[in-house]
């Protein structure tokens, strides 16, 4: 008798099943995260307080969470773009650093009149992020060099560049610390009067909506879908494959650069060595959890922002390490990805009769 169960692939899982499996994966991930935190020494009632109530249900908490979500929205939708094209950008932080450098350069050098200073910072950051993406893109399109390697390595180069500047020409003259001088008020986003929340939120929301329109409603988005799913067929259908990839991938790099400028102009108001840390991993987590949908990415960026906020509190009050916060993101990512398996397959138990 055959007693082991077997797997059968579902042809069309259906929306309800997908949603249910996704929710189940999310719940399992959160449950595991709670266990992790308890194991790390956080009292259970504090977890509920900090992680859920403080981050999502108090006015201060929501302001904090939303503030953290602003750059996450930008790197999240940027990663959605590259993921649609099956272009694996592991250099999110590199492009973000370059954007931060460009914004700081405009701000510290007082380039242009004050009225256009902030828009100029954003523009420069976008262009710098795109430019940092240009080399891996060229290598990939021209010689087939793996973008995973080139973007990842250029990320480290970007960080060395930041250190070079902060330990050199941009070292704070007032304190001598390796941080840049503080930005002038004209180089900062206006506060919205609710916690640390600032006008950069509108930039992120607008960028997210634009990406959604671009990918789901425009011709270029249609090309991107076809190219990502079957590049040969897209080419044989007469689509402008290289141009589409170049345009979208550079745009994604630009959005990551923009995230750098938004962090500087929104919350930090100066360049330091920690503004870009953690965004590579978060951007990928967000895009995967959103199943490469820009709108879902914006929502999930908010949730991940909450994890950032709660993580900050947990770090300070319960001496939980930064690694645990990353671990929580990773755990939720893994369980949601695993949940996809249950919507794609089902278990059956075959019935074998013995031959007479």
């Amino acid at each position, binding site marked *: 008798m055959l007693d082991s169960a077997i797997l059968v692939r579902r042809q069309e899982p259906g929306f309800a099943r997908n949603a249910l499996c996704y929710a189940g994966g999310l719940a399992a991930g959160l449950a595991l995260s709670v266990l992790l935190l308890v194991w790390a020494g956080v009292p259970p009632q504090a977890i509920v307080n900090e992680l859920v109530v403080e981050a999502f249900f108090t006015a201060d908490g929501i302001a904090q969470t939303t503030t953290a979500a602003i750059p996450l929205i930008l790197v999240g939708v940027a990663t959605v773009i590259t993921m649609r094209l099956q272009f694996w950008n592991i250099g999110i932080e590199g492009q973000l650093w370059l954007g931060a450098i460009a914004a700081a350069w405009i701000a510290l050098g007082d380039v242009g009149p004050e009225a256009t200073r902030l828009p100029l910072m954003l523009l420069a950051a976008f262009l710098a992020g795109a430019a940092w993406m240009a080399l891996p893109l060229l290598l990939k399109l021209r010689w087939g060099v793996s973008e995973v390697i080139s973007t990842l390595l250029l990320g480290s180069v970007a960080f060395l560049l930041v250190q070079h500047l902060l330990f050199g020409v941009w070292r704070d003259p007032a304190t001598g610390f390796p941080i840049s001088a503080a930005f002038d008020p004209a180089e900062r986003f206006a506060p919205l009067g609710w916690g640390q929340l600032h006008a950069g939120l509108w930039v992120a929301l607008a960028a997210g909506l634009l990406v959604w329109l671009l990918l789901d409603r425009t011709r270029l988005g249609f090309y991107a879908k076809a190219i990502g799913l079957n590049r040969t067929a897209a080419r044989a259908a007469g689509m402008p494959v290289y141009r589409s990839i170049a345009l979208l991938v550079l745009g994604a790099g630009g959005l990551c650069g923009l995230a750098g400028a938004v962090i500087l102009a929104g919350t930090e108001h100066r360049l330091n060595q920690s503004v870009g840390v953690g965004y590579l991993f978060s951007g990928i987590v967000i895009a995967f959890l959103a199943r490469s949908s820009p709108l879902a990415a914006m929502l999930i960026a908010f949730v991940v922002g909450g994890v950032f906020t709660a993580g900050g509190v947990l770090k300070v009050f319960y001496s939980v390490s930064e690694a645990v916060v990353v671990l929580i993101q990773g755990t939720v990512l893994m369980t949601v990805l695993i949940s996809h398996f249950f919507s794609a397959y089902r278990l059956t138990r075959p019935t074998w009769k*013995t031959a007479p």
Partner: protein
Amino acid sequence: MMPASEHGRPPALALRGIDKAFDGKPALSGADFSLAWGEVHALVGENGAGKSTLMNVATGVYAADGGAQSVDGRSVPLRGPGDAIAAGLGMVHQHYRLVNRFTVAENILLALGSQGAARSLREAAALAAEKSREVGLSIRPDAVIATLSIAERQRVEILKVLLLGARIVILDEPTAVLTDGEAEALFSFTRRLAGQGHAVVLITHKLREVAAHSDRVTVMRQGRTVLAGKPTAEISIAEVARHAVGDPLTRVERPLSRPGAVCFTVEDLVVRRDDGTVPVDGLSLSLCASEVLGIAGVGGNGQQELVDCLAGLLPPAGGRITLSGDDLAPQSIRERRRRGLRVVPSDRFDAGLVRDMSIAENLALTGVREGRYGSALLLNRRRMRDAALGAIERFAIHGAAPGRTTGLLSGGNAQKVLLARELDDGLKVLVAHSPARGLDVKAAQSVHALIKQAVEQGAACLLISEDLEEVMALSHRVAVMNRGRIAGTVPVAEATPAWIGERMIGHA
């Protein structure tokens, strides 16, 4: 009721009432099969009739939902392929399972090692050499798989199966990738194997092979056994075909149109690969409006490269491609398509369709850039949907809805999606590469009917196919491609098998 073999032994393999469903859709419903020792048994049916599924159940690859199986009279419950191997069942799959960078001996060791039948490379090589002598397959154990021909790789697979102790050998569409000569060699080998007491199952949809090379035939249709173990000598090809298809087989007819003026020419076309090989080497041909020019030939003589070059996917190293007087060689893929050159590639989910996009999106794949589905910026999804509904009805695409994923369609219906797109307005020259490959008889007929209709409406068609029957049935003129060139072109009435055969194997 169990037909005992002429040796009075229990059947080598008996499958009774096998059920198997994939995600609720039945692939087998109560299928029976009985195989005797010492025979070559043909298992025949259209694509999707359940032949391969039934044999995959027998060899433990799929677990049946119900039914019983016995080998040599003993019941064998299968928990996986390992149990089937232990019971003496071996299957050579359509797609070989060999590591291309390994040698023959290394591949054998890989297969035997887990069974404990060979412990070292030297032992595996010795076993391989001994077995290949015993059964008369010439294989060098130290040859690297990548350097072997398809036929030789098949022999390695057979050897592997035999070394694993198979007494029942199942060959899944073994001749699909072989030349006629290679197929002959394979059949004389299976005959020898049966003579040595093995039982051989030949899964095929080529009816002529059945007549010439099997002792008995079992026909399957829609997951059921419709003809069980009939001696081949007592049945005609037509009768087997009638069982397989369900209704009388009607042959495809050539388009009724008369060829018009020359509209498409290829002159001295050369395609050079990066590795220095020249798969298309000075090929010339001309094609008239309302004409089908069929190009026969053994696969691998530059057909794929010719198609890719005409499509614009591979740049030519020299020569001219002229459509209505304009040179297309320097033109982009899009421009060729605009001028009426359309290509149906042999692998529809490679260069034709996007498996994970919807049917509406696939139908719009080429038209979006031409502005047929919205402006340069925005996409008009409603127009895509309406166009898809129209195409689904006009081309009778079964199981299709505009929003349904294309990969879920059967091969024939997916091919209709591709044809619906390519036969669209403005078609002048259709390059069709094995358009009915992998399709069952009915689906192949409807694909041929669509091509016929397009040609009768004035299009020219370059039909490149390894299926000689297809070429002979559809073409006005027949050409043979050999080593990257056209080895000769004649009107179809003069294309005798001898004429074609000579050019196929001759060194043109």
